[in-house]
């Protein structure tokens, strides 16, 4: 199966290459960043997170997700790297980067993973029916009623976030973090994970202000933080921002270009529609491109943990 898929995508990838070569320059130059002017965001301070999984619990509760197999109080799930799935829109992963404390114990670093609510999201531009939209408040919103289940978004997302209800035969949906859209549209509302976090590792606010806060934190405590805000420029910027004391590459973060993903996806789409290619081959091309693209990121990562981490 794996090999078949690989071969299939390999062929598709070559086709995509062809499509790209056809008309790349014009479409790319024509595109401008499609980001809301003053969106909300969340700043996650990785140095503060204690890995308590309360954010997972809160997410489960506000989204009415099914009860977990292992209780949220149980640290065992941290033993393997997880990805957001249909039943959990956010997960916390534990990394050991090799740092030790005075008692020679490995210091764990915890990273919360969820949809980054990109400023100019790949998933939104890939969605051909407009089921996914970037809202002014920053949320990348999914409207299940419009969704036709094509799953382009899943392939288009550079972070491999959207998950699909494969086991639901009747009304399958794409699942991903909602940014608690229904809460944050209200005055003073915050995402549930930011509210619950006992150590306030997650700060919710205007993205612009959070960037300032992040810079200030890094400046005030250069021993604690690396001088990098993940999400500031990655794929054109994301609403979720991370600051860390450990190199991001060691914490499962992908090293992504600063160009928004739609540059690529839209280029392909436009190119293909111009030559009236069949929708099936469109899917194949897109899929193949994104697959190889993501694959590169994953295999490029030195951490052995990544192996378990990828889906």
């Amino acid at each position, binding site marked *: 199966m794996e090999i078949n898929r690989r071969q299939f995508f390999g062929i598709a990838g070559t086709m995509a290459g062809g499509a790209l070569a056809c008309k790349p320059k014009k479409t790319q130059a024509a595109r401008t960043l499609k980001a809301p002017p003053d969106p909300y965001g969340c700043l996650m301070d990785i140095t503060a997170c204690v890995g308590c999984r309360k954010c997972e619990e809160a997410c489960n509760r506000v989204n009415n997700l099914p009860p977990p197999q292992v209780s949220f109080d149980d640290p065992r799930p941290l033993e393997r790297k997880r990805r957001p799935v249909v039943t959990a829109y956010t997960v916390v992963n534990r990394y050991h980067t090799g740092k030790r404390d005075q008692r020679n114990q490995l210091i764990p670093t915890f990273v919360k993973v969820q949809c980054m609510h990109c400023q100019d999201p790949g998933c939104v531009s890939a969605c051909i029916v407009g089921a996914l939209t970037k809202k002014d408040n920053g949320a990348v919103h999914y409207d299940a009623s419009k969704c036709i289940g094509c799953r382009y978004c899943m392939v288009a997302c550079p972070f491999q976030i959207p998950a699909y209800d494969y086991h639901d035969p009747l009304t399958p949906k794409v699942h991903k973090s909602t940014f608690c859209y229904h809460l944050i549209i209200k005055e003073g509302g915050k995402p549930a994970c930011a509210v619950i*976090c006992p150590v*306030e590792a997650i700060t919710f606010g205007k993205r612009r202000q959070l960037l300032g806060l992040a810079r200030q934190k890094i400046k*005030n405590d250069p021993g604690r933080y690396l001088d990098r805000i993940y999400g500031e420029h990655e794929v054109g910027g994301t609403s979720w921002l991370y600051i860390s004391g450990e190199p991001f590459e060691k914490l499962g973060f992908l090293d992504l270009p600063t160009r928004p993903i739609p540059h690529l996806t839209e280029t392909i789409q436009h190119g293909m529609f111009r030559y009236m290619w069949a929708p099936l081959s469109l899917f194949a091309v897109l899929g193949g491109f994104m697959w190889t693209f993501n694959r590169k990121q994953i295999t490029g990562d030195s951490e052995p943990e990544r192996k378990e981490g990828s889906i």
Partner: protein
Amino acid sequence: MKQWKKPNTISMLAMLTVVLVSTLAVTLFKNRIDVADAVDPTQPTVAPTPIPRAWEARQTAAEHRSAEVVPLVKEVLKETPAQRRARFGDKVPQIEDIEYSYFLLNNPIIEKEGNLYGRVRFMHKKHAGILKDCFICHHHRAADPKAPDISRCSACHQDSFNAELPGRIGLKGAHHRQCMGCHKKWNRGPVGCTECHPKNVPDHTNLVKLPWNPKPTDVTKECLRCHDVQAEEMLTSTHWLWKGPSPFTEGSEKRIDLGKATKTINNFLIHIASNLPRCTSCHAGYGWKEATFDFTDKTRIDCLVCHDTSKTYVKAPLGAGMPDLKVDLVHVAKKVGKPSRKTCGSCHFSGGGEDPVKHGKLNPFLDFHSSSCDIHMGGLGFECHECHKTRNHKISGRSLALPVAEGSRSCEDCHTAIPHQGKALLNHHLNRHTEHIACTTCHNPFYAKCDPSKTFWDWSTAGNKKRKVKKDEHGMPDYDWKMGDFRWENRVKPAYAWYNGKVKRHILGDKINTEGVTVLTEPVGDIKDPNSKIYPLKFMGGIQAADAVHNYLLVPHLFGPGGYLETMDWQKSFAEGMKAAGLPYSGQYKWVETIMYIGLNHEVLPKKFALSCVQCHASLRTERSCGRCHQDKHEVDFKNLAFQGIDFKILHGKGRDVQERVESTYYIGFEKLGYKGDPILFGGRFKQLPLGWRLGSKKE
């Protein structure tokens, strides 16, 4: 239609007015009566309740403080710790400057965003005593020079994200980062959620789905729908098996089979064999009425007896653990939550058959808001599980009377081994005591504080239906023709003994002491053992039956059909009882004397009612100053120091019968513990105190 409706509305309005006015009138009238009652001078003044209300003030004040939201300090003074210290000079705040030693960490600021957990009790003074530097936690001050230098956390830390002050973390984050950060850094103190907080149990009203009038096991099945793991945990717990590891029983450290269900024997109701439906009416399960009870059947677990919050759940007295038929199980199941004093107490307060019989330190009074019985439960509202930390349904804590233990708890776990904080002279001396005497020795100077407790039980005299039952001075019967003679005591001075944590235990089948008294449980310890400390203990005497040939204690069949309480025939009772216990009965019995010791770790009194120095060290009574040991300092008020502590006179005035202990000295009795006499004069157990020399040299 319209015309008909109008008068109706009017009449309704009129009726409403009448009702309102009458309610108002009644309320006013009632208030008047109340007021009149309060000031009526003709009424005789009723003696005040024996519960001094002021004792509860600390908890109320802490609750009040935790409900306050103070104005936010917007600007803070930027200075380094060194600059700050320099600013204070030698006026750096000290532990003695602490205004409140106890806080409840909670605030409406935190609550408004919901809370998975209950509030944390924070021992402020203890932390100050350990850190010895206020500025570690109180790290900044307000820029306003008029503001106090040290302010509470919530003065600066409030909402989690304030757009005006983006760098400032909120109150919840501040608490957690400060507490956990420090605890982690020093590898000391709790870091897990439930090590500080009790967890809030979600409302089960809509979660629990039960038919009308379910069987108890149906309720458990419904619980199991979500809590199967918890049931698995329960199946291996001692509350379910009534046996388990006995790590503190001498000679049985590795055993896991001791417990009430097997070989534990006492001098109250002796043993559970053949008496199951009565004894197991306290079992956290349904229907353990025969030895064949299936201990692997999860549906027989009684979740409600521990998790009821409706306070309506009771078990039937002879029901082998089944609930009383009157209990509305659906209501109780929808109201499940954390265990409480009430639920734990439903069994533990009535050990020995009924309320206050057995323990002398656990009684229903602990459920009331009063610290005159117990500072933790009564005064500060502690629930049992706040100390008896529970993991996977294994409840920590141990007892002298019972071998099973799933972990142990001690005062030091919270109060540390140097519990008397502060630089005051007395604290230093008191902290020197903690290696040698248990906290409860001073802080629990008498037991059965609020309820008399049984201290002697003579089964041999049972059976005399004609004997007149007398009530003793506590109003308790001295005899029951079914059960023999009793002695009840109130406000009892404990027995004191060296105890290193190990217990010598008589188990069923052990040979009795044919020469004298058989000791059923006894603390292990010795004056020369550095791990031993002096502990207060309840002393329980009894006369019970032993096999005259085999020389072991006999198990009587007491309750139920054919039991002694019905047949009044000891021979039959012993034959049945020993059959159930699996030991031969020779057919001849004799009455033997037994004693057992029971620990006294609850009913701790507030610190001002601890024993004073002079209560034990009589030699200090005649001293006028510290001059015997130290160079005399005139500013020290020796009398005030040495005499500080429990005043039995006050307690006596409050209606406690402690008269014979007023002015008592030699309270714990040094000679009986192996000392030559008062250690102040004769020296401590390991070293001569610098102070004994005068008398010592005089003697020689």
